[in-house]
């Protein structure tokens, strides 16, 4: 039993890392990682929401009717997001400014909805907490790594301290939107290469198998395959 619990926790760290393996939560991953500290701020906020909403949804899993589960999940998540939003605003105003509207947008972060749908609504409280914690830490780690890469390349600093700015001219494009897409692409390529070496499947497409909206989206993707170019 104990070993199983550890598995729930470590699952989200590497094997099913939400960003690199499940490819969920791409919007905040690309948007806020202009500096390592923002990555940590976003990661920790999302982790808190994820763990709290997993607890509540797991507790309510026998109460919520199946038909209205998605709106119910969204309401629970939105409640916790508002709490986190107010806490960040009160105690870390600089992070609040840096994250801007992406902080309230944690509501629609698919990692949280996906874990509610795939895990918390089917498991008891302790596994749900561990799963949320593991996924949250995996998310934070990737965001921080990406923030660090973009900060070093784009500004020559790390966590605000000068690293390479004195001898290499910073390439500002890494801080701009194209840099986000590029660094993320390179990270996914690297994670794929490692996965391949270890005999794991590589990520070829966006994480549709893990997307919370998959059941609704099926018709869309089926349509994509059937339609012939006009």
């Amino acid at each position, binding site marked *: 039993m104990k070993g199983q619990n550890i598995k729930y926790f470590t699952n989200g760290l590497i094997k099913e890392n939400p960003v690199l393996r499940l*490819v969920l939560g*791409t*919007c*905040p991953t*690309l*948007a806020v990682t202009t500096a390592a500290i923002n990555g940590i701020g976003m990661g920790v906020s999302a982790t808190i929401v994820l763990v709290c909403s997993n607890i509540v949804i797991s507790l309510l899993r026998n109460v919520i009717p199946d038909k209205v589960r*998605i*709106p119910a999940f*969204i*309401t629970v998540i*939105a*409640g916790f*997001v*508002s709490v986190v*939003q*107010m806490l960040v605003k009160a105690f870390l105003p600089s992070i609040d400014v840096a994250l*801007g*509207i992406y902080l*309230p*947008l944690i*509501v*629609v*972060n*698919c990692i949280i*909805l996906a874990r509610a749908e795939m895990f918390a609504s089917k498991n008891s409280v302790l596994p749900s907490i561990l799963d949320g914690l593991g996924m949250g830490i995996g998310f934070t780690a990737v965001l921080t790594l990406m923030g660090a890469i973009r900060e070093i390349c784009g500004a020559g600093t790390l966590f605000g301290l000068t690293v390479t700015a004195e001898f290499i001219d910073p390439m500002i*494009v890494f801080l*701009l*939107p*194209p*840099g*986000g*897409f*590029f660094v*993320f*692409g*390179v990270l*996914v*390529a690297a994670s*794929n*290469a490692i996965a391949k070496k270890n005999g794991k499947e*590589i*990520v*070829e*497409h*966006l994480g*549709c198998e893990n*997307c*919370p*909206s998959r059941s*609704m*989206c099926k*018709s*869309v993707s089926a*349509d*994509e395959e059937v*339609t012939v*170019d*006009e």
Partner: protein
Amino acid sequence: MNNTTTIVSILLAAILTDNMVLSKFLGICPFLGVSKKPGTAFSMSIAVTLVMVVSTAVTYPIYTYLLYPKFAYLQTIVFILVIAAIVQLIEIVLKRFIKPVYNALGIYLPLITTNCAVLGVTMLNITDGLSFVQSLFNALGAGLGFMLAMLLFAGVRSKVEAADVPEFLKGLPITLIAAAIVSLSFLGFAGIGG
């Protein structure tokens, strides 16, 4: 006259300089997921634009007259629930009264509730302090900008699919790097619409 120029500049900014997808990173999932075929990309963007404009028309008065200033902290939770309700309503109305439109857009509507571009645009309208009319045009522009990005990217992707890509970049990585280049081209618009 002055009003018209403001509205034109809001539209241009929303479509080009502050493009939802390519510079604000909102709505990345449909951008990467539903952009394989131009036809699907187009229908999806039409649905997104429709929901954006209607949601703005509803959330803006709710925020200004009901929530602000006493209950401003309820913004997030109220907005997402209102958007979810609007999407359901639009689906019901289209299904009942405008069947052809429903057949074309219906399957995309449920996906839009959790699309961060819609929630994002309604919130940005408030944070940027736009007036009601300006907000509506901003939402329209955001939707059109989303469409432009989707269609452009669908075109780029069909070329990428046919290209001989190095083994380690195949699949998602090359898609993201292609998106980086499309996004780079949009940097050229910086300054337009001031």
